[in-house]
């Protein structure tokens, strides 16, 4: 006689554990690219990862045929985008100084570039995810690629600002 069917909860925790082992590294890299933090000091990216994983865990049984990785990535992008809206980037943009190849980009272009080129999400899905028109996604992605490949020279250094110079 075969053993009893594993319960719903057992299936969730087994499936989620395997998923975390396989996907957390790549998701964390994606998050770190988004927040433009150095890879060894990335609290905001880790927080994004935890939130995305927690939502994936909670939605595990609703996924059915959906790929959990897609779902987690959607949560991550969502969360990053809402963070930009809600707090107007205080925890993300005020963090000194941005690091990595995408440091010079504004957060939304960073998000589009990472989704399109690093994660390979098709342009129409990216547009749907962000609620932008398709041609806007193309434009922003093109602009971001140009900015990454041909970075402009750094603007006025901080110490040279007139406000900083006056006592």
């Amino acid at each position, binding site marked *: 006689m075969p053993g009893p069917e594993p319960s719903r909860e057992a299936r969730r*925790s087994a499936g*989620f*554990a395997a998923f*975390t*082992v396989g996907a*957390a*590294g*790549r998701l*964390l*890299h994606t998050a*770190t*690219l988004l927040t433009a933090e150095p*890879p*060894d000091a*990335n609290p905001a*990216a*880790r927080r994004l*990862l*935890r*939130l995305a*994983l*927690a*939502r*994936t*865990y*909670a939605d595990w049984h609703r996924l059915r045929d959906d790929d959990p990785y897609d779902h987690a990535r959607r949560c991550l992008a969502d969360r990053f985008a809402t963070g930009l809206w809600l707090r107007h980037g205080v925890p993300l943009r005020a963090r000194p100084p941005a690091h*990595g*190849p*995408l440091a010079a980009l504004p957060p939304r272009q960073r998000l589009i*570039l*990472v989704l399109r*080129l*690093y994660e390979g999400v098709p342009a129409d899905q990216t547009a749907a995810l962000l609620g932008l028109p398709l041609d806007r996604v193309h434009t922003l992605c*093109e602009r971001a*690629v*140009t900015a*990454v*490949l041909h970075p402009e020279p750094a603007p006025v250094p901080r110490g040279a600002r007139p406000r900083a110079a006056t006592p």
Partner: protein
Amino acid sequence: MNRADREAAVRRLLERDGPAAVPPDTHPVAVRAGERLLRRRRCARRLLWLLLCAAAVAFTVWAAWVHPWTAPPPPATDW
């Protein structure tokens, strides 16, 4: 440099650092947060059902008391 080349160059740049080191407590922390989320959702669902039931009971009691389906008595015409 055409578009595909430029995109490939950016892709290489993005993949340069390789996967980040995942903190070891990621899985248990995510599970705990996920459970909390599930509990909160269950709570919200229960509350909504409770509200719905309360509304249904209140309506039934009111309808049994008032009999809104009976016609109001005709106006008195004794003048």
